């Protein structure tokens, strides 16, 4: 490595003129001269590093007060099994190449704000030094996976061989922008908008008709304008997320500082707000630019010739109409190491919103309903993860399921079968301006989008109310 580093430094030195005094002024220009990794940040920000270390964004787990069967334990993507890439543990870090020698995966840690170590619950100097502050705070920071001399892997700035460039980027410190948040939150699940559906890269480029909150000609908000909390804790919890870092400061449209509980000039609309979430009318569709993953069948490998890569069979959809369900802010989760429970539809509920018509805390919310086919351990009926990294390259599904079972549960040569699953994912982004919101007939008509019976009504409650008002049954 050293000779190559020298070569590069010579090349850069030859390429670049020495122009003292012409360096641009960045926010941290005066605080340090040379960036020497996280240690440079820790000199002044040790307390901030500790708060970040304990946050959900570093630990990838947190307290689960809103998970009705959480049992007081901490859960998060680090220790559960999901129906997208299944589990973090077997796929944390490492380079997977296809048969052409091209990189097709680098592990889940690509989106962890650390330099490659698996987060541990206990604070230590090694864990604090593992924090990659620049990932969220430095505009223009990019990193890549590199192999250490001991054979292990770590994330490094792509400018690690260009100290002048790295110093420049490391001094551009600021509050995380929407662009930096979207790098992970819009790209999760394997591709652009695969996972969430309502968080797309396009939100920073489109006009207010796409997302009235984030568009520059709309409210011009950044993610942190709504989700910013304190001590690296984030406000707001999606219905299918485990943790809620700030339960004392819940995030909602009806916050007095935003829209209040009676935001409409038409009283008939304000009458809805007690039982219908704002998102239900104001997000008519999601996945408006990039299609989103609606069904992921892990039992049927699919080969992609262009990328020379295997994946599950994924069914994508664009301009998706949400499904609607009651939600009181709590969720029932399918936990690892617990026998799967099938619902009336025969599917295992990965994340199910709680509440019904009789629950005064519940409102009707819009959801992305994600279906999947997942392996379960015969006998125990535990969900199994898949060691996806090797599977991406080889397509050897059986080996990948068995490796996942061994790494996650310590079960060797696992016998497994397949189950169908369902996950309800809250839709809260891509809010359209008022004139684009749903109208009365979008729900209250024979062809309306709400399944009234599934919501606990005999039929359209407006029809029932009008019949009652006119003395008819």
């Amino acid at each position, binding site marked *: 490595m050293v000779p*190559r580093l020298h070569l*590069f430094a010579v090349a*850069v030195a030859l390429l*670049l003129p020495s122009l003292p005094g012409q360096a641009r002024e960045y926010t941290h220009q005066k605080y340090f001269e040379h960036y020497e990794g996280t240690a440079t940040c820790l000199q002044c920000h040790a307390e901030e590093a500790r708060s970040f270390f304990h946050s959900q964004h570093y630990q990838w787990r947190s307290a689960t007060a809103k998970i009705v069967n959480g049992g007081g334990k901490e859960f998060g993507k680090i220790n559960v099994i999901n129906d997208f890439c299944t589990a973090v543990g077997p796929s944390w870090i490492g380079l997977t190449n296809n048969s052409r020698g091209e990189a097709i995966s680098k592990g889940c840690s690509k989106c962890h704000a650390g330099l490659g170590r698996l987060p541990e619950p206990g604070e230590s100097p090694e864990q604090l030094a593992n924090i990659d502050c620049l990932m969220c705070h430095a505009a*223009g920071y990019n990193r890549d996976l590199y192999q250490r001399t001991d054979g292990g892997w770590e994330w490094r700035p792509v*400018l690690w061989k*260009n100290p002048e*460039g790295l110093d*420049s980027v490391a001094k551009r410190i600021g509050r995380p922008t929407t662009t930096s948040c979207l790098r992970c939150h819009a790209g999760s699940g394997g591709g652009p908008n695969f996972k969430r559906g309502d968080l797309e890269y396009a939100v920073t480029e489109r006009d207010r008709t796409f997302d009235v909150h984030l568009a520059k000609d709309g409210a011009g908000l950044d993610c942190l304008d709504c989700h910013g909390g304190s001590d690296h804790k984030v406000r707001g919890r999606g219905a299918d997320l485990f943790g809620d870092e700030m339960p004392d400061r819940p995030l909602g449209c009806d916050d007095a500082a935003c829209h209040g509980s009676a935001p409409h000039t038409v009283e008939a609309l304000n009458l809805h707000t007690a039982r219908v979430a704002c998102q239900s009318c104001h997000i008519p569709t999601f996945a408006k630019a990039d299609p989103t993953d609606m069904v992921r069948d892990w039992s049927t490998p699919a080969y992609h010739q262009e990328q020379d890569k295997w994946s599950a069979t994924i069914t994508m959809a664009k301009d998706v109409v949400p499904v609607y369900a009651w939600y009181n802010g709590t969720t029932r989760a399918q936990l690892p190491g617990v026998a799967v429970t099938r619902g009336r539809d025969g599917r295992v509920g990965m994340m199910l919103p709680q509440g019904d018509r009789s629950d005064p805390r519940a409102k009707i919310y819009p959801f992305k309903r994600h279906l999947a086919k997942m392996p379960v351990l015969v006998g125990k009926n535990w969900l199994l993860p898949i060691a996806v990294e090797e599977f991406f390259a080889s397509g050897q599904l059986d080996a990948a399921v068995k490796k996942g079972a061994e790494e996650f549960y310590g079960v060797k040569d696992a016998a497994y079968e397949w189950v169908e699953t369902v996950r309800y994912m809250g839709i809260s982004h891509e809010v359209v301006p008022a004139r684009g919101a749903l109208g009365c007939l979008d729900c209250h008509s024979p062809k309306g989008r709400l399944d009234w019976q599934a919501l606990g009504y005999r039929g359209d409650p407006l029809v029932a109310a009008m019949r009652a008002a006119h003395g008819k049954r």
Partner: protein
Amino acid sequence: MKSLLWIGVVGCLVLVGVAMAADKPADGRELYKEYCKSCHGPNSPHGEVTPMSLIVEQWERFFAEKLEPSHRSVLDPKHDNRPVLEVITPEMLKKIKEFAIEHAADSEHPMTCG
């Protein structure tokens, strides 16, 4: 007779396609690979340089002030050893610069040139 006619039509279409492909201007990435990578590829004695080797500010300074003096006597081995600054036209250079800056280390899409 009919099949001969079809062969003629297909042949013409192929020739038109080839001509169009030849006329199609190369993009910045292709130009970078063709004219820069030959001396600045992996393990090169001149040092590997890709768009994401430098930040935008460095690329701007390079094209404004350093390219000409540092490449004045460089001959292009891929193009008959002609002086590289003669081989690369101003139009080509503009595209190479745009590609390098668009994919610089501090851009939204940093990349090598493949």
